[in-house]
């Protein structure tokens, strides 16, 4: 978490601990802080604070969106588990992404049925970093909506996007994206965990899944997580402020790392869209290696990476995204997923490249001997 975020949150754990719904003056100060935080969050996505429902993270936001609107739902086979599992509760169609993890608007269009009520596509894929053509998809949804209305069909169709993954590097203005619902997660922008939001346009009716005292317009009852909202607002504010600079910076660092690794291991396979890809993402596979061994070797040297499969010897733990994009098992099992962020700089990226090359090289030597 960003220290500035922690500092902003701190008072609401101690001095300003009052329940924002309480009637006395010190509580009203807390309520104002909470509302200001929501306004700030709204501002960051080009919306109003009272169009936002605060949640305990993106998973809850996605579920709230899905349960509010119902099926038929169109989504993609490379989506996050939160989306895939929530979609399973309804009639749904999974659109197949291409080998880059890219979901075309044409494929979405083809999957929309007369009774489709919701299309849900993430702004960017969390494993591959592939950025989805959300504006094109929004156009498809808008065209469908207009076609329905013109024939007197009032079945609504909405576009939801989980923008958690892209928010630090991409524009998340809801009007420009053309979405009806938007999910964000605080932890993805160096904010607190278990804090998220669901924005919905005024024409979308959300259905309460948690009932009680009527907080969050009655959509999500329960005493407000004031510190969480304040922290999220601060985190998103910082992310928005540095977005352009940070995106360029990370892109340069990532490209440097990528070219070093590819030069050292020409057999390496890069996944994700070459052009439409998050600046801080690098997904690279070393065929026939056990990526988990590389992960363990690197962690002891301070380089933290993720793999496309956990405990390769155990069946069934390969990433559904890598399976969806058709990556062969021996490639998928050698996959490393690297994300760069605030703490990445030229110096530590140079070290990281050096260590990765050493450890991957060591593993290739071991396997071949």
């Amino acid at each position: 978490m960003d220290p500035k975020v922690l500092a902003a949150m701190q008072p609401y754990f101690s001095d300003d601990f009052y329940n924002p719904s309480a009637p006395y003056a010190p509580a009203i100060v807390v309520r104002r802080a909470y509302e200001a935080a929501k306004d700030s969050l709204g501002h960051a996505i080009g919306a109003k604070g009272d169009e936002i429902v605060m949640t305990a993270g993106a998973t809850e936001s996605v579920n709230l969106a899905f349960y509010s609107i119902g099926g038929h739902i169109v989504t993609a086979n490379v989506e996050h588990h939160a989306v895939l599992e929530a979609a399973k509760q309804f009639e749904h169609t999974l659109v197949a992404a291409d080998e880059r993890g890219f979901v075309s608007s044409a494929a979405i269009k083809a999957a929309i049925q007369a009774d489709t009520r919701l299309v849900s596509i993430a702004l960017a894929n969390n494993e591959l970093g592939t950025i989805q053509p959300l504006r094109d998809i929004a156009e498809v949804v808008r065209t469908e909506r207009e076609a329905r209305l013109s024939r007197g069909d009032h079945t609504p169709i909405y576009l939801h996007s989980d923008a958690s993954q892209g928010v630090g590097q991409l524009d998340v203005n809801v009007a420009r994206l053309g979405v009806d619902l938007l999910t964000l997660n605080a932890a993805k922008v160096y904010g607190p965990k278990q804090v998220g939001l669901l924005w919905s346009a005024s024409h979308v009716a959300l259905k309460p899944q948690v009932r009680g005292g009527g907080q969050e317009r009655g959509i999500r009852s329960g005493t407000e997580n004031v510190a969480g909202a304040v922290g999220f607002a601060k985190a998103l504010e910082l992310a928005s402020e540095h977005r352009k600079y940070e995106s360029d910076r990370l892109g340069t660092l990532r490209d440097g790392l990528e070219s070093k690794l590819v030069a050292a291991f020409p057999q390496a396979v890069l996944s994700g869209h070459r052009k439409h890809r998050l600046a801080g993402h690098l997904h690279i596979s070393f065929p026939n290696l056990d990526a988990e061994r590389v992960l363990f070797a690197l962690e002891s040297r301070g380089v933290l990476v993720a793999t496309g499969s956990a405990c390769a010897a155990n069946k069934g733990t390969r990433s559904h995204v890598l399976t969806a994009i058709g990556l062969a098992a021996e490639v998928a099992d050698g996959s490393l997923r690297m994300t760069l962020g605030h703490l990445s700089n030229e110096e530590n990226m140079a070290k990281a490249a050096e260590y990765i090359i050493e450890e991957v090289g060591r593993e290739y030597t071991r396997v071949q001997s």
Partner: protein
Amino acid sequence: MTKVYVGMSGGVDSSLTAALLKEQGYDVTGVYMKNWTKDLPGMKCPWADDLADAKRVAVQLGIDFKVFDFENEYKHKVVDYMIEEYKLGRTPNPDIMCNQEVKFKLFLETALEDGADMIATGHYARVEDGVLKQAVDVNKDQTYFLYRVTEKALQKTLFPLGEFTKPAVREMAKERGLYTAAKKDSQGICFVGQIGIREFLSQYVEQVAGPIIDKKSGKVLGQHDGAIFYTIGQRHGLDLGGGLPYYVVGKDMDKNEVYVTTDLNDETLWKPELTLSSVHWINAAPTEGTFKVRIRHRAPLASATLAFEGDDVKLVLHDAERAAAAGQSVVIYDGDVCIGGGIIA
């Protein structure tokens, strides 16, 4: 170069075992035996973390690493056996069964087929030419759990930790910077963990209430929730209120009755004679005479006279010992050699 497959559990003992063998010049492969993965109420099975830790150490050592999946066999040969024994009113030892059926049979056979010349584990025991000896650290000695292993298996087995004390093992792991050097030792039966055998069995057998009866007076003192949960000699968990502590001295599984007494001199608690069946000798059978015996892990060695009765063995204890329950193993020693043992009939 001799190819050794080391059973790596993700603990410090097996980690150091692999490290030492590699230093001694063996061609070492680490193997995680995936035996049990089921979570129990109140206890998350740590297998995935343990597997990851074992693999981390393998990577540290630069050795090959494999996973052998014995889950079905383990359930069948160890867990089902244990549950069946309890249902018969006996007190089995699943660790002994695991060594006999899984580690020194299935693992050994699978490893040999896979190209290994030998296997090794982190047990505290010593082996010389197929002869099993107590560990140098008598406090840690694990030969009690190994008495049913065959001579043939032991000839293909290395126990490098038998020469060291546990604190020395920790120290050596630390010196080598092994990832698991400070990891806490696992407790109790591996798949039961700290929740206790009672909670484990409750998952598999129905709890049926029955009477707790005073052995002397025949009076019903209270209710229990299943005779299966009680072991002869047990003192705790009877919940009979104040006064002198009660000890379990008998059970009738058919009637679901548990018999207790406050009389510490009750003959059941101090049987001077033990009859062992399912007797196993690691090397040649001994001749009748005086030996040292151990009736539970880490119990002090006791002197006993051994005589054969057909396939069974009769032991006459020189000093009365707190009774062991049917199903428990008694392990027999000749000096520091573990020669075998049997199961209390």
